[in-house]
């Protein structure tokens, strides 16, 4: 009996110890703000450091805590944020930003141009090791700074306390769009030492409309409205952003009234859409993406353009879109999605045309006795299988044999970057709404492999066309140039262009004015309201 008592006591002690370690402080809210929004992310944002963040989950928190010089508003217009105004020199090589005055960080430090210089310099600082150096690589002196030959970026200077000048080494018209990215959010230079040892990013602060008041990794991040915000202030009092990796769990939490929004997937879309109570609260958001089957353009059988074109023509995109996405996607006629510069409707010569496709395959030397056979690398997720199994079945009808190679995400990225995958099902999501984002990283030969050009596509003419297009300052003319490049690349069919998919969200009855622009992951939740 003594032993049983002993084990009970042991358990009690463990529970008490755990309780002591778990206590958290309570937080109060400013009274002029109303309502609490309960949201979630599918994974813990591992990095809240703007210079180190690479995914949407990280961006969605950063966007509420920090501000950049410029941002995209809910209508996808580029507007000033910390910058009150800016000018671009006629040759497109110098941008001068006038900063707003009376902007304060959450700890009370005032924002000046030195914070801007400090934050942008960090991205190129070799000791930071930022994965986002490409954002500023066109700035004068960027290479020297990245190589450690200089301790500051020559092209980024504080003219006075509220004026910042950025000089580019060559004209690069989309530069302003890049400045809206989370990587370019502004940090307080007064906290430089905490920033450099990374302890700052446990609960970082910026000048944004929300402050992080509580953070338990893998559990939740609590944000409270910033009463001293420089712009139109948020309407909400608080946002509770939980980390819920399991879709099914999120669905349960939403239905129990514990979440105010739910991301829908093909698997549960139908169910909510068919219920009139939910259907009215579903929003389909055309997002900036392209789904594709990439080929390794350098190795057989995909070094033959006839094979690549043929496969494009053998895929009935509309049929798959209807079956999997219930119509919430548009067929891709290139890499650039609708809604941004460079997208044009119309034919690219690769539409579903099985006769022509089969003819091309025959011309390339494939027949019933010698069928085209290849491995298709993909993520081992339900959503990927839904697509690839359909593709496999569709192409089999035309005598093409596909072996699916499902892999875990890290292993897949590795295989594709190294060029080991002859064909792969992947997608590309935009970082900023400019056609350049869907051309340069994915098809310019300098981004070969892990840089984004996973298809190992290499064409000098296309390289030059892309380089020339970004020098065009006039937005309409630049858009036309992107569109021409988009068409030109399609002639080479480096991918099977599949579609641009929408994302769908269900919101609770309490929520209104949620920003559902394609750049919503960088939304700072200023308009969002939640009834109490």
């Amino acid at each position, binding site marked *: 009996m003594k*032993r049983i008592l002993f084990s009970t006591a042991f358990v009690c002690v463990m*529970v008490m110890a755990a309780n002591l370690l778990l206590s958290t402080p309570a937080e109060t809210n400013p009274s002029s703000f109303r309502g609490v929004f309960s949201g979630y992310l599918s994974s813990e944002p591992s990095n809240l450091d703007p210079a180190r963040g690479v995914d949407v989950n990280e961006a969605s928190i950063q966007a509420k805590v920090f501000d950049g010089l410029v941002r995209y508003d809910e209508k996808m217009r580029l507007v000033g944020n910390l910058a009150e105004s800016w000018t671009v020199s006629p040759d497109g090589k110098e941008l001068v930003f006038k900063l707003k005055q009376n902007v304060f960080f959450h700890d009370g430090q005032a924002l000046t141009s030195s914070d801007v210089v400090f934050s942008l310099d960090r991205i190129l600082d070799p000791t930071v090791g930022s994965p986002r150096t*490409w954002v500023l690589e066109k700035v004068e002196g960027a290479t020297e700074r990245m190589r450690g030959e200089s301790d500051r970026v020559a092209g980024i200077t504080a003219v006075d306390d509220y004026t910042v000048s950025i000089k580019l080494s060559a004209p690069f018209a989309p530069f302003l769009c890049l400045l809206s990215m989370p990587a370019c959010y502004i940090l307080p230079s007064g906290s430089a030492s905490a920033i450099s040892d990374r302890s700052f990013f446990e609960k970082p602060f910026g000048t944004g409309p929300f402050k992080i008041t509580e953070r338990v990794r893998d559990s939740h991040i609590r944000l409270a409205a910033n009463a001293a915000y420089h712009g139109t202030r948020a309407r909400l009092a608080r946002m509770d952003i939980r980390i819920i990796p399991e879709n099914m769990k999120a669905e349960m939490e939403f239905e129990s009234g514990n979440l105010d929004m739910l991301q829908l997937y093909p698997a549960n879309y139908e169910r909510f859409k068919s219920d009139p109570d939910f259907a009215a609260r579903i929003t389909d958001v055309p997002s900036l993406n392209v789904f594709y089957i990439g080929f390794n353009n350098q190795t057989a059988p995909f070094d033959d353009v006839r094979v690549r074109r043929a496969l494009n023509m053998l895929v009935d995109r509309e049929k798959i879109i209807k079956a999997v996405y219930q119509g919430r996607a548009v067929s891709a006629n290139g890499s650039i999605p609708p809604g941004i510069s460079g997208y044009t409707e119309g034919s690219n010569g690769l539409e579903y045309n099985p006769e022509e496709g089969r003819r091309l395959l025959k011309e390339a030397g494939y027949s019933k006795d010698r069928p085209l056979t290849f491995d298709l690398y993909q993520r081992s997720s339900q959503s990927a299988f839904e697509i690839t199994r359909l593709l496999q079945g569709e192409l089999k009808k035309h005598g093409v044999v596909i072996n699916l190679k499902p892999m875990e995400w890290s292993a897949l990225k590795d295989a594709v970057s190294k060029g080991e995958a002859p064909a792969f099902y992947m997608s590309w999501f935009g970082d900023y709404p400019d056609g350049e984002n869907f051309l340069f990283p994915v098809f310019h030969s300098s981004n070969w492999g892990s840089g984004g050009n996973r298809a190992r596509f290499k064409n000098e003419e296309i390289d030059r066309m892309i380089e020339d297009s970004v020098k065009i300052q006039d937005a309409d003319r630049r858009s036309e140039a992107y569109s021409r490049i988009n068409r030109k690349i399609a002639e080479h069919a480096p991918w099977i262009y599949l579609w641009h998919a929408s994302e769908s969200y269900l919101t609770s009855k309490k929520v209104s004015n949620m920003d559902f622009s394609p750049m919503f992951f960088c939304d700072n939740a200023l308009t969002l309201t939640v009834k109490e």
Partner: protein
Amino acid sequence: MLEFTLRRLAATIPVLLGILLIAFVVLYLIPGDPAQTIAGPRADAATLARIADEMGLDQPVHQRFLSYLKRISRGDLGGSVVSGKPVLESVIEKLPYTLKLAALAMTFSIVLGILAGIISAITQGRWLDRICTVFSVTGISIPVFLSGLVFLYVFAVRLKWFPSSGFAAEDSLLPFILPAFTLGIRSAAFLARIVRSSMIEVLNQDFIRTARAKGLSPARILFRHGLVNALIPVITVIGLDLSSYLNGSVIVETIFDLPGIGRFAMDAILQRDYPVIQGIVLLGALVFIMVNLAVDLLYAWINPKIRDEMLGRLAR
């Protein structure tokens, strides 16, 4: 006894080294590159090379292993390559959740399992025994992800007796009850089977008949003579369960939103965050070794015969 403990502790060092080596080699062999996780979708070759260099990934594997050993011998588990946060700090942050869950699950498992086992054993072959058997076979057969979701749906979503996640009430034990029950019920079922067969075996032995003949009370026979002697295999199972709970339960932590060690480990594996994976493997191995040692010592304490054997072996 002290000497025995010290020797057992010393014997754990080669075991730990072996585990670390295996973990290291496996990490080296699996495809996927942490530099790519850090660098994101637009990772040019220069960035990848720089990150790999920073992490020491370009060194030969034996050199990396040696420098890793050197580091941990100083008590430095390193920092996450993704977030930069020290591994030890993260583990300490997550430990309370896992400890609470493990402690509660063990409580459910021990109380329910031993009770059901004893009832089964003394009502052997009768209807109460049959009911206990049906329950324990069901408990063993249903996987945790299923029972977890069912409990969640019934008790949290429908009946609202418990919160559905660890987020709802951080300071109370309430959010831990359902996940602990999910985990505990499964090992309780297993434990019940073992207690039952072990008890039946012991209760049929001569010394129990002797005790009965002496006129001892049934309760005294059952607990003082029966249960204590039946405990040895039971403690082994409890020890194994406890160590696995202390290493985190990915599925239960995921279903019930508890930010414990299991989820932390899973995320690290998916991101190829080597220092975190190695740190968790090391701590996990330590937990296993310590719990096993405790189990061995408990054997010796419960059964003097075993203690004498242990000491005798040492003397030889």
